[in-house]
């Protein structure tokens, strides 16, 4: 895990800072003179060997010094923090709502595999999963902003946090993501329902509801759990699109703006944070799987 992070940090440094004159141009602007750029490189220690620069950059990075954003002229660490907080709010609601919906729908269709209800839920979830975020965002904006006129079409949080500005981004992300989770949950539930201990529980006369809630559901949760946590990686991609669409002042929008602007230090920091979240979620998924599944824990 640490090896992967190190490799990625090295690749990023290679991509963005191996051409040092380019760095100077980005920092000082297109219209700076060559002399100014060379002077800037001299002053900021860019004439040291590549490896020295990388190691120094890495140490600063680990200590939380990400450099200064060229675009916003503020420390990157502060900007990343602010934007991450907003994205955290968004992600929290998306995750909570998505998981609740997919749990209910997944169980409902999984316990009656092949029934009309199961088919309807499956088709519905395929339908919503086929709508990429920017497509469903378009449709929701058409309905809620232009037609019903009850929600704002952008979420810049110009005057602080507003509840009605977060509704559409959450709706869009939930729509795209819940289908996948539902199908996971359904498959897992359907498999557990055919297992022998569930049959035993039903035959021994326990109420059906109790069998589902107590015996089946707990075991059915193990497989989807790992997938759900791993999905965080994909959720982040969706978050970027949604935030760009709604100008939601979050991490995704910040990353996008930095990448498009060529704000080197900001992209490096954002990418590392994104990768860190992804790698961490992988780790949590592994650990969680072991904790949830006694068969692995005790073997």
């Amino acid at each position: 895990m640490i090896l992967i992070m190190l490799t990625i940090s090295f690749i990023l440094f290679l991509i963005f800072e191996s051409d040092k004159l380019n760095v100077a141009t980005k920092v000082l602007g297109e219209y700076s003179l060559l002399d100014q750029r060379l002077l800037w490189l001299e002053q900021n220690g860019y004439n040291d060997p590549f490896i020295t620069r990388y190691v120094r950059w890495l140490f600063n990075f680990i200590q939380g010094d990400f450099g200064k954003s060229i675009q916003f002229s503020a420390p990157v660490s502060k900007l990343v923090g602010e934007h991450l907080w907003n994205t955290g709010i968004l992600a929290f609601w998306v995750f909570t709502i998505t998981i609740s919906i997919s749990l209910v729908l997944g169980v409902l269709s999984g316990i009656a595999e092949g029934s009309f209800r199961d088919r309807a839920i499956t088709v519905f979830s395929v339908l919503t999963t086929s709508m990429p975020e920017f497509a469903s965002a378009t449709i929701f904006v058409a309905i809620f902003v232009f037609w019903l006129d009850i929600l704002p079409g952008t979420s810049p949080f110009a005057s602080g946090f507003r509840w009605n500005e977060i509704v559409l981004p959450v709706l869009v992300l939930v729509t795209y993501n819940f289908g996948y989770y539902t199908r996971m949950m359904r498959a897992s539930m359907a498999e557990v329902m055919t297992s022998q201990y569930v049959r035993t529980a039903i035959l021994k006369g326990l109420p059906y509801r109790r069998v589902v809630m107590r015996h089946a559901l707990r075991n059915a949760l193990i497989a989807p759990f790992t997938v759900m946590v791993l999905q965080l990686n994909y959720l982040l991609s969706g978050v970027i699109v949604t935030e760009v669409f709604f100008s939601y002042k979050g991490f995704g929008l910040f990353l996008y703006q930095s990448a498009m602007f060529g704000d080197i230090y900001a992209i490096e920091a954002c990418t590392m944070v994104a990768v860190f979240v992804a790698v961490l979620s992988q780790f949590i998924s592994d650990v969680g799987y072991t904790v949830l599944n006694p068969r692995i824990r005790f073997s």
Partner: protein
Amino acid sequence: MTDTTAAANRAPKPDSILRKLGKAILLMRESRIGMFGAFLVLFWVMIAIFVPLLPLHEPLTITRGSSLMPMLSTDPTGAFHWLGTDDRSRDILSRLLWGSRLVLFWATAATLVAYTMGMLLGVMAGYKAGWWDEVISFIGNVLLSFPLLVLYLVILTSFGANSSAGQWLKAALGVDSAVIAGIMIIVAVMFGTAPQVARIVRGLVLDLKTRDYIAAAEVRGESPLYIMLVELLPNARGPLIVDACLRLGYVTITIALLGFLGLGLPPPDPDWGKMINEARAWGSNGMNAMLWPAFAISTLVLGLNLLADGIREISLRD
């Protein structure tokens, strides 16, 4: 298994491909969902192929005086616009249908390249094991640790058509910047998708290589290359076909997504994602120009997803 393939190779095969296709279609009929998916996909493929023959306005010509017209309207010159016009008076229906070409072409090309790369790496990692496996799996893990879109953003902003690398490539190959943008998209998609494919193929190969027919081929003295390409890959195709179908859907979304983010094909090409992005600035006037590309991309991806479901359903039944 090897005997039968060898026999099939020797025997004359007058109708193998056509018959196989026919069989596949017959099988497809058993899954209603799959049929509907196939219908949606075929619809867009047909449009992409035959769009030059349709009686449409020019998708790229910019005229004056009839911009942002609503659906079903006639402009001052008497031309009728089914879906209205955009901010440069271009016919939206025509741009939408021509857009299917771009999306389908680049999505298919990118998926094919990524799949080939992923399959080769996966089969190498699975069959050769040892160092090969370590190295390939590590590179794959590094790439998979990037959230996909972040990877695309980094690749396309650093090496895209507008970067110095892109300019250099453009000069070296002497082609249009649209082609460079397309190639860069393919490369980016390859980096994002090939590791996932490689991981799946590796898993399948690890299982397949313990089979008797692989041992037989080894005893026969076949070269590792022959075993990997002729014995292993064709036998791993079942799950791969379903995955390829889903993957094509993701890549289609990706292509449109990059267009939406302004990283796709350069203007004035009518790319669905870009159409949505442009229309976003026009407020309620752009609603119509925004909704149709959104429906188009959703139906195409829905078709691919349902098709994959259908194929999976049928392959599980056998």
